[in-house]
């Protein structure tokens, strides 16, 4: 790639980074705003906040960390990580349904 084409290529990247930045700022304000909306059940608020957080995390990992256009090996590493992370969360949530007999629950 010659020098002007190379610079133009990165200028496009910079524009994309700025759009992601604005989206992250907007997402933060939406997260705060949504936390004050009485959905009737606290777990709905938790779900909404985590959904927005996941969207923001996707933007940071996908664009700032370039995961959206990474090499196969990085995807391999992250797939293993995601598998074990989700396994950990599954065990955590699954443990709620596995109380020993006579356990006092709230």
């Amino acid at each position, binding site marked *: 790639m010659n020098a002007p084409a190379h610079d133009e290529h990165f*200028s496009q990247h910079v524009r994309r980074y700025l759009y992601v930045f604005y989206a992250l700022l907007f997402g*933060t304000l939406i997260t705060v705003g949504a936390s004050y909306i009485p959905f009737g059940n606290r777990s709905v608020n938790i779900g909404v906040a985590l959904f927005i957080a996941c969207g923001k995390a996707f933007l*940071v990992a996908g664009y700032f960390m370039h995961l959206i256009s990474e*090499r196969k090996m990085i995807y391999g*590493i992250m797939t293993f990580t995601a598998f074990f*992370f989700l396994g950990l*969360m599954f065990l955590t*949530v699954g443990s709620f349904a596995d109380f020993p007999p006579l356990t006092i629950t709230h």
Partner: protein
Amino acid sequence: MDIPHVVQPRPDTGLYNAKVGIWLFLASEVMLFGALFSAYILLRVGAPEWPYGWLNVPLGTANTLVLITSSITTVMAWASLKMKQFGRFKIFHAITLSLACVFLGIKSYEYHDKFTHYEIDLKDGRVADGHIVENGKDEIVISGRFAKDRHDLYDLHERKLPPHQEITIPRAQIAEMSSYGPGHNTYTAVYFTLTGLHALHVIGGAIVIGYLWSFGSKMWQTDPERFTNRIEVSGLFWHFVDLIWIFLFPVLYLL
């Protein structure tokens, strides 16, 4: 003997060594924070009551915006090097470093606020809650309010408590008092553990960014490509720190 693929990527993976290294490190970090989030879920679900509204949301929001802004300046610094604009890189990285300091400054203020905030159980059954104004030998002056019992202090959004005022409490009336430090209850323990570990990551990242901005930037003159790779790798770590905060903020401050 030179180590291969320090700068140029391996032909089969398309990656240079440090990039594989940082992603493996980040994978281990995901599991570290994952374990702590898992502990948080277990403790929260098992708790009979969970505090709500104990942290300063405007300050937490400000810190979130600070970290997001530092993320964009980090990636801009890297893009500047890719476009051979070293001067712009220096400016963007200086901003990142300043924002890291702002984040830590705000966090320190929040920690100080919690360590000077006391819950005081009185012998008559009432609970006084507020910040210490004067810590005398015979009496304590706080800026705070009385609550019927400690459950009144749990949900500060829903329950209407009287406004803060200066209250003088003779020491003889105090049954027990504890600051809102890590030992106060499960919530503060979780809060200080998660944000403390995150703050250590911010400090570590800031040290690396500071080095690459100052002494380490000499490498740009001798080996610009390798220096650009270093900025990319340090940037990946910094974005990860931002990513963790994206989850910590709603989980601890808003929910």
